[in-house]
C-alpha cells in the first residue's frame, strides 16, 4: 500500500525572511529603475525611435511565454492523466501565475504612460491582438486560480480535470496570442509569419519546463524535502524533447525565409553578418542554449547528475532569452524594406542597421520582473500547501518496486 502524497507549507523563520529580503531587493531595484526611466523619459534607455521595444520586452515576453509553459506539468497530470505528475500540479499552477505577474509587471512598467493602465483596462480596440492579450493574460490568472482551488480543496477535486482542461486550452490560446503580436506585423521582414504562433507555443513548453525544474529542485533542496530520481528524470527527458522541438521550428522558420528572395536580406543579417545577433543566434541560442543542454540531458553520465541537469536547465533558459533578444531586437534592428532595390539614407536612420545597447535600468527592470515571479512563488509555498512533503520515488513512481530499491 502506497503512502499518500502530503502537501505542506515550507517553514518560515529567519532563513525564509532573509532569502525573501534578498529577492525583495531585486524587486525594489526593478521598481527604482522603472521610476528612473519614466521620470526622465525613455531617452535614458537604449531604446529609440528605431528600436522601440528593448530589453524590458525581452524579459517580459520571455516570462509571459514561460508562464504558460510552466502550467504544462499540471496539464500533463490533469488533462493527459499521467499520475506521476500529479504531486507537481499545484506548484506548476503557482509558478505559471507568478511568472505571468512578473512578465506583465515589466511590460506595464516599460509603457510610456504606465499611469494610464486604467485606460488600457477600460478602452479596447478589439482588432488589436494586444487588446485580446489583456483579456487572455488576466483571464489566465483567473482560470489557473480556479484550477488551483479545484486541486487544493478536497470537496472540489472532482472538477480538477474539467478546470485543468479549460486552463490547458486557455494557455494554448494565450501563447498563440503572444506569438501573434509578432506574427501579425506585416511591416517587418523578420515577423509577418503564421509560424510565430506555434513556435511561441513550443518555446513556452521549453522555457516553462526549464524554469519549473530549477524551481522544483531549489524548493526541495531548500526545504530539505526528498525529490526522487524517477520524477526528475521524467521531467528532464521531456525538456530535452521540447528544446529539440524549438530548434525544429527555428529551422523551418529560417528555411522558409531562405527560400523567399525578398527575405534573403534579413536572413543574411541574422544568420551571417548581423554581428551580435548572429553570434547570439549560433553561439548562445543554438550551441550553448539548445544543443549543449540536449547533450547534457541525455548523456548517461551528465543526464543522471542533478548538478548537470540544473546546468542544462539554466542553459536552456539562457538560450531562450537569447532567442527572444534575436526575435524582438534583431527583428527591429533590420531596417524596413520600403524601397526594394534601393539604398536608403536619411536623418531618421532609414535603410541602415539600427543600433541598440541595453542600458542598466532596462536590465535591472527585467531582472526585477524575474524577482517578482520568484518572490511570489516563495511566498506562495510558505503560506499555502503547494509543495509536497516528499517526492521520493516510492511515493511518485508507479513502477517503483522494493526490489529495484534494494538493487
Amino acid at each position, binding site marked *: 500500500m502506497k503512502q499518500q502524497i502530503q502537501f505542506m507549507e515550507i517553514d518560515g523563520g529567519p532563513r525564509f525572511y532573509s532569502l525573501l529580503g534578498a529577492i525583495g531587493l531585486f524587486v525594489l531595484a526593478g521598481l527604482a529603475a522603472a521610476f528612473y526611466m519614466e521620470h526622465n523619459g525613455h531617452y535614458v534607455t537604449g531604446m529609440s525611435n528605431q528600436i522601440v521595444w528593448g530589453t524590458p520586452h525581452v524579459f517580459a515576453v520571455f516570462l509571459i511565454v514561460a508562464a504558460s509553459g510552466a502550467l504544462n506539468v499540471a496539464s500533463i497530470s490533469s488533462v493527459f492523466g499521467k499520475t506521476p505528475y500529479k504531486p507537481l500540479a499545484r506548484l506548476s499552477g503557482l509558478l505559471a501565475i507568478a511568472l505571468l505577474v512578473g512578465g506583465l509587471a515589466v511590460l506595464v512598467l516599460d509603457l510610456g504612460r504606465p499611469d*494610464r493602465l486604467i485606460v*488600457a483596462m477600460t478602452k479596447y480596440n478589439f482588432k488589436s491582438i494586444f487588446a485580446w492579450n489583456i483579456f487572455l493574460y488576466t483571464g489566465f490568472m483567473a482560470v489557473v486560480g480556479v484550477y488551483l482551488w479545484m486541486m487544493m480543496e478536497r470537496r472540489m477535486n472532482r472538477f480538477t480535470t474539467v478546470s485543468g482542461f479549460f486552463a490547458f486550452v486557455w494557455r494554448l490560446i494565450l501563447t498563440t496570442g503572444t506569438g501573434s503580436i509578432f506574427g501579425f506585423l506585416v511591416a517587418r521582414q523578420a515577423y509577418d509569419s503564421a509560424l510565430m504562433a506555434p513556435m511561441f507555443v513550443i518555446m513556452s513548453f521549453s522555457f516553462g519546463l526549464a524554469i519549473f525544474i530549477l524551481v522544483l529542485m531549489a524548493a526541495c533542496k531548500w526545504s530539505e524535502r526528498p525529490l526522487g530520481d524517477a520524477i526528475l528524470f521524467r521531467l528532464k527527458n521531456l525538456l530535452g524533447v521540447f528544446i529539440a522541438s524549438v530548434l525544429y521550428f527555428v529551422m523551418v522558420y529560417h528555411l522558409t525565409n531562405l527560400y523567399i528572395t525578398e527575405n534573403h536580406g534579413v536572413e543574411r543579417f541574422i544568420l551571417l553578418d548581423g554581428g551580435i545577433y548572429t553570434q547570439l543566434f549560433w553561439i548562445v541560442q543554438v550551441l550553448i542554449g539548445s544543443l549543449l543542454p540536449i547533450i547534457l540531458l541525455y548523456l548517461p553520465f551528465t543526464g543522471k547528475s542533478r548538478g548537470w541537469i540544473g546546468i542544462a536547465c539554466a542553459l536552456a533558459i539562457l538560450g531562450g532569452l537569447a532567442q527572444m533578444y534575436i526575435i524582438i531586437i534583431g527583428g527591429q534592428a533590420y531596417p524596413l524594406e520600403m524601397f526594394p532595390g534601393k539604398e536608403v539614407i*536619411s536623418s531618421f536612420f532609414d535603410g541602415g542597421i539600427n543600433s541598440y545597447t541595453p542600458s542598466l535600468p532596462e536590465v535591472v527592470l527585467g531582472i526585477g520582473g524575474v524577482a517578482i515571479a520568484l518572490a511570489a512563488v516563495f511566498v506562495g509555498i510558505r503560506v499555502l500547501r503547494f509543495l509536497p512533503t516528499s517526492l521520493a520515488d516510492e511515493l511518485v513512481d508507479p513502477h517503483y518496486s522494493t526490489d529495484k530499491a534494494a538493487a
Partner: protein
Amino acid sequence: MTDNAHTDTTRRRFLGGAATAVAGLALAPGVLLHKVAQARPADEPVSSAVRWGMLIDTNKCAKGCSDCVNACAKEHGLTGHGRPQTDAQWIRSVDLRDKQTGYTQTLPLLCQHCEHPPCVDVCPTGASFKRADGIVLVDKHICIGCRYCMMACPYKARSFVHETIDDQLPHSPRGKGTVESCTFCVERVDTGRTPACVEACKAENHNAMIFGDMNDPASEISKQLKKYNSRQIRADLELNTGVRYRGI
C-alpha cells in the same frame, strides 16, 4: 441685307457673352462658397465624403532641400534635444540610390494616412484612429505609450516622445511617453488651409507637393492623379495610402 446680318451676329454675340457673364457672376459665388464650404464649420463632424490626400512629385524634390521638413518642425514645435536617435521626426527627407543603375533621387517621407492603417489595427486602446476624412491621428489622452503602432507602421512614420516637452504649441499637443506622427496639419485643414509642408514647398516655388480632396474629381490632386501615373510606397500591402508619389 449683308449689313443687317452683320449687325445681327454682333448683337447676338454681345447678348450671348453678356448672358454668360451674368450667369457666371450669379453662379460663381455659389461655386466659390462650395469650395470654401469644404473647410467645414467647427460644429460639424468630419465627413467621409472627403478623403484628404497628398501627391508628391519627386522629380521636383532637390537633394538637400529641407523646406518641408523645416516648415513641419516650426508648425508643430518639433525642437530636438540634439539626440537624433530619440528626437521626433514627422516628415523627413530620404535619399534613394538604385543599387543596379546608380540612379539617385530624394523624397519626403511622412505618415502615409492609409485607408487601412496598420497602426490603428494594432493599437490596444483605440488611441490610434482614422478620421472619417482619412486623416490618421493619435489621441494623446488615450495613448499608453506601448509603441505597438511603431512596430506595425511600414513607413517608420511615428515617433515616441522620449523626454519632457516644455515648448508645446497650443494647436499641436504632444506629451512625454506618447506616440505621435504627421497630422496632415489637421488644425490648418479644418480651417481650409493646406499643411505647412505643402505651403512651404509652394512658397519656395518648388511645387513638389499638392494637397487636396482625392474624392473630389475637380480637385487639383484628383486631376493630377488621374492624368499621370503615381505610386504608393509598399503598394503590395494594399493599404491604399493617402500620400502618393510621382517619379519613384
